[in-house]
């Protein structure tokens, strides 16, 4: 079982990428769950989305308290939320930030594998908009190896083709690729 928590703000697409990542994993034969946690939801408020992935059918219907990996869409949430809460020792945390991963060590400590990816920066290049989510998924796949890059690309293409223009599909695939390439496993 692999459990992921995504930190974002309502409206940033945390739920959407949680669902996308679950669907891509489902497509390669894994068992999945993806769910948001709703507070008194309003745009801009801090919120979480979660993904559970397993090779066996998933019986649990509880919250994810001890994630294996954390994605932070909005780096300011590192200041206001406890983004490493329950994160397993040596767990992965990927932050959308231009800063170095070392700059977060002071705040988050040495117990985790901290990665930063300038996902907003990369997204601006491909979308002309700050939608960093698929960049972060590319990075997540590199760091976690839950599925391989081609599976993520194929699954995303398959899903987005039904909804988005070919240009936007392409922009998303490039975002994934660049997020994947950017993250370096030391």
């Amino acid at each position, binding site marked *: 079982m692999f459990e992921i928590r995504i930190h974002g703000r309502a409206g940033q697409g945390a739920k959407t990428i949680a669902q996308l990542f679950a669907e891509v994993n489902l497509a390669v034969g894994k068992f999945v769950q993806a769910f*948001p946690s709703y507070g008194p939801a309003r745009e801009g408020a801090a919120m979480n989305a979660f993904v559970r992935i397993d090779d066996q059918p998933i019986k649990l219907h509880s919250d994810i308290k001890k994630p294996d990996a954390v994605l932070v869409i909005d780096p300011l949430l590192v200041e206001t939320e406890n983004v490493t809460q329950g994160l397993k020792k040596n767990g992965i945390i990927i932050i959308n930030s231009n800063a170095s991963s070392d700059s977060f060590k002071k705040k988050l400590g040495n117990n985790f594998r901290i990665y930063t990816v300038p996902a907003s920066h990369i997204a601006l290049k491909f979308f002309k908009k700050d939608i960093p989510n698929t960049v972060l998924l590319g990075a997540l796949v590199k760091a976690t190896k839950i599925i391989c890059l081609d599976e993520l690309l194929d699954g995303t293409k398959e899903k987005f083709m039904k909804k988005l223009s070919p240009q936007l599909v392409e922009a998303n695939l490039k975002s994934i690729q660049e997020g994947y390439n950017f993250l370096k496993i030391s």
Partner: protein
Amino acid sequence: MTKNNFKTIALTGGEAAAEAMRQINPAVFSAYPITPQTPIIEKFAKIVEKGLVETKFVSVESEHSAMSLMVGAAAAGGRAMTATSSQGLALMIEILPITSGLRLPVVMNLAMRSISAPLNIHNDHQDAMLARDLGWIQIFCENNQEVYENNFLAVRLAENSKVKLPVMVCQDGFIASHNLEGVKVYDDKIIKNFVGDYTPENYLLNLKKPLTIGAFVMPDYYFEIKKQVADAMNEAKKVYLKIAQELKKITGNNYGYFEQYFMSDAKAVIVAMGSVSGTAKAAVDKLRSQGKKVGLLKINLYRPFPYQEVEKVLNKIKFVGILERVMGCGSITPLTSDISECLNSKTSRQTYILGLGGRDVQMEEIEEIFNDLLKGKLSKEPKYVGLKN
């Protein structure tokens, strides 16, 4: 079952209900939007808009109107479906016993949510329990696959000529309704063949055989008509199993009155309904791996309640714990009342109230409950799991 007659699709519980309705193709659907039922009405509205069903989708100004419309549509002879949650169900209450009293086979998807006050949009079973004695059949779902399949079972059961009663398919709000899971969606042809067309025996729009529905009844007949509803409920119990067997031939999933999970040699058994049953199964797996004799009884059919059958499977169990997502206010909680009826003097029971208003229930908490039961720490007073001091 190995034939490739299904596709595994990622669906939330709400979407699974809507996808089932697409295949059922009701004549009329009406609902008033309320959280966490929202994904049901949202997805089904899109299905109707795309012309994938012939359903008349009627927008209304309240749940009371939605349910009244169900009565009208079903009385007219149409297959009628709705969906709601919490206060929405509370507003429908006036019409619920009218539906069952008139023997109208309406099917409702309920995304279960707490009841106000305090206002809260999250899950427990207090809304479903409002309707437990109103002549509605109630089926509880553990996961999205069950939501999808139980809709077909519900329609067949409701429309069966020996039953003719409304059915409520209950899924946990948010925990199921907003949780994406892989759902095996079977070919339209197979499902349509299973569900069949609805051909009512008597209906208002049959001009060749005029009839009155909803007549006033004096004391000389009211009693008898209510007894017929009770008799139909008893029939529903028999018919449920037959339809469940038929459904099993398609999906391979076994929808008995309940599911027994590691019960044969168990010393301590938890009785549960809905999604928490899944978490309890995970707890059973873990404790079994440590050699502890624990098991789970998951209730699928809550109304009519399978008293005799539950009694048979619980009569050798020493300790029974009952999980309830309901607050008892000056009363024994509903599932505990039902289960107590099934226990002999050798079995001790303990009620655990948990998960109210969306309070999370972790597997470790259920492990603790099992350990509590195995030590024989039981009392007539309910224990509150996860309650802050």
